[in-house]
């Protein structure tokens, strides 16, 4: 974990590559182009970069309309303004109308640690996953981000991609076969399964390392797709390891842990521990310190899991 990359720049560069392959990709900005990593796309394809200013409801509707004419809009802005604010447009114009639009919420989770609850996006997974037919991807490292952009461009239908802001360590092999809806076993093990997603995958990796040093044998899964959920991999983990822990930078209500609990409670009940943010608006402060305040650093996660296993 010593190779760190900027998630927004990684996204923007991947979109240029995807834009070369798919001539009908257009980038949609709500006064959010530079901050979303779209500058290289705008320079490479100026006629395919469309600025709308700060109108997050409008851009979702316009994107739906563009998609009806065969365009593949990638709409990118700060996560809460792409999800909570225009939720009805997302639900009706993209979900109900089944339009081929890719919405990217950046600086999600607590990554706007200094700007507070208006800009932190802890509920995006929970609300967007309720929309039928929408794919929800939460990439766990820069490799995942690149693969998610290409997979979303190739996938026909609405997709939400959640991105963080601070630099992320490279965790995955760049040649690994990314598939929407398929989690990845990063570490085999048999006494507990740790399922990490998005910006906290790196913390789950660290917790796994600590637990191994203490003699545990945790299985670690990168669950980069929240919807559709990889049922098979989760049920196998429940059966083979008997305990499941989820790690995410978002509200426990409705997030990854909640998705998995919905599955295993009915199909294969096993004890679960969900690690994330409880029912509260979070404080402000430096990002890593804020994670520590909510028990989301690797060492803290390892300790929580150790107590859970005791």
């Amino acid at each position: 974990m010593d190779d760190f990359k900027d998630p927004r720049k990684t996204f923007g560069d991947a979109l240029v590559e995807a834009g070369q392959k798919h001539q009908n990709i257009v980038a949609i900005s709500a006064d959010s182009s530079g901050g979303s990593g779209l500058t290289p796309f705008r320079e490479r394809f100026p006629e395919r970069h469309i600025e709308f200013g700060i109108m997050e409801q409008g851009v979702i509707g316009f994107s739906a309309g563009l998609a009806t004419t065969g365009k593949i809009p990638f709409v990118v802005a700060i996560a809460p303004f792409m999800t909570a604010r225009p939720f009805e447009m997302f639900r009706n114009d993209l979900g109900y109308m089944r339009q081929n639009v890719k919405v990217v919420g950046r600086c999600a989770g607590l990554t706007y640690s200094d700007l507070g609850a208006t800009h932190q996006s802890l509920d995006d997974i929970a609300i967007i996953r309720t929309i039928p037919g929408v794919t929800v991807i939460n990439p766990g490292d820069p490799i995942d981000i690149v693969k998610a952009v290409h997979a979303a461009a190739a996938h026909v239908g609405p997709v939400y991609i959640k991105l963080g802001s601070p630099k992320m360590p490279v965790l995955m092999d760049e040649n690994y076969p990314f598939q929407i809806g398929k989690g990845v076993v990063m570490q085999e093990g048999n006494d507990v399964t740790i399922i990490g997603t998005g910006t906290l995958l790196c913390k789950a990796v660290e917790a796994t390392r600590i637990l191994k040093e203490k003699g545990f044998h945790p299985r670690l899964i990168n669950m980069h797709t929240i919807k559709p959920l990889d049922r098979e991999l989760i049920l196998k983990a429940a059966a083979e390891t008997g305990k499941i822990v989820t790690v995410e930078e978002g509200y426990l209500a409705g997030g990854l842990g909640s998705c998995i609990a919905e599955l295993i409670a009915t199909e294969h009940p096993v004890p679960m521990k969900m690690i994330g943010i409880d029912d509260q608006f979070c404080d402000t402060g430096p990002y890593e310190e804020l994670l520590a305040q909510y028990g989301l650093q690797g060492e803290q996660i390892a300790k929580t899991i150790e107590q859970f296993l005791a």
Partner: protein
Amino acid sequence: MQKLNKSEKTALEKIAVQNRKNVLRLMKAGRMGHIGGALSSVDIMTALYFKVMQVDPQNPNWPQRDRFILSAGHKCLALYGILAEKGFFSHAILDTYGALGSKLGGHPDMHKVPGVETNTGALGHGLSIAGGMAMGLQMDGLDAKVYVIMGDGELAEGSNWEAAAAASHHKLDNLLVFVDRNHLQISGKTIDVMNYEPLDKRWQAFGWSAREIDGHDLKQIVENATDIPFEKGKPSVIIADTVKSKGVSFAENKADYHYWKATDEDLSIAQRELEKIEEGIS
């Protein structure tokens, strides 16, 4: 501009009456529905589908087609009847309205009804979607145009004004909005509930070219709708003055008929009134 001569106008008026009868047919099947706005906007829709727009009922997804977006999706009884009349689907389907599993719901579904372009019903969505369509058609160099009907009460939704600003900023002059100004919404007079007048000046302030017409005069509708863009580089809007429930005298200009639960007797009276109107067309 496409001029409408007297015989063409008469022919179109007959189609408009037939389309009103189709609204009653749907009401008879479903027993309830948003009749007020359907009957205030049916003349505009009739003119669009039978004189203005290029569409192909045999090939509803023809890429070069003109698009019609019913932003005020609750007026769909008019649209359903017109799509049947135009040949997008059989008239028999109108009789399923209100039944479990019918393709025709209380708000239109593009995946169920041939010819429907958007899933509207929640107000304040249609103009953004229409703007995206107009933009996509322009990017592809197509001449197709996008026509929208909005309600006057609907204009209180703030999202419309995001869309209005963006359509003007991006010079979408292949876009025409009709505001079906029937002056009423569910709680009463639009100017009392939330006053957005003067509508023409508001749209103009957002960069649109605006005209006001009689929304039941088919000649005015056709001649203005075929005269877009009113100004090159600007989207166009027609503020069409209409009468809620137009054609059914006991329901005209009454907010109570925004959504109507009809009895057999009501429907018979309404049907006879439409037949009288039809006999009077010459």
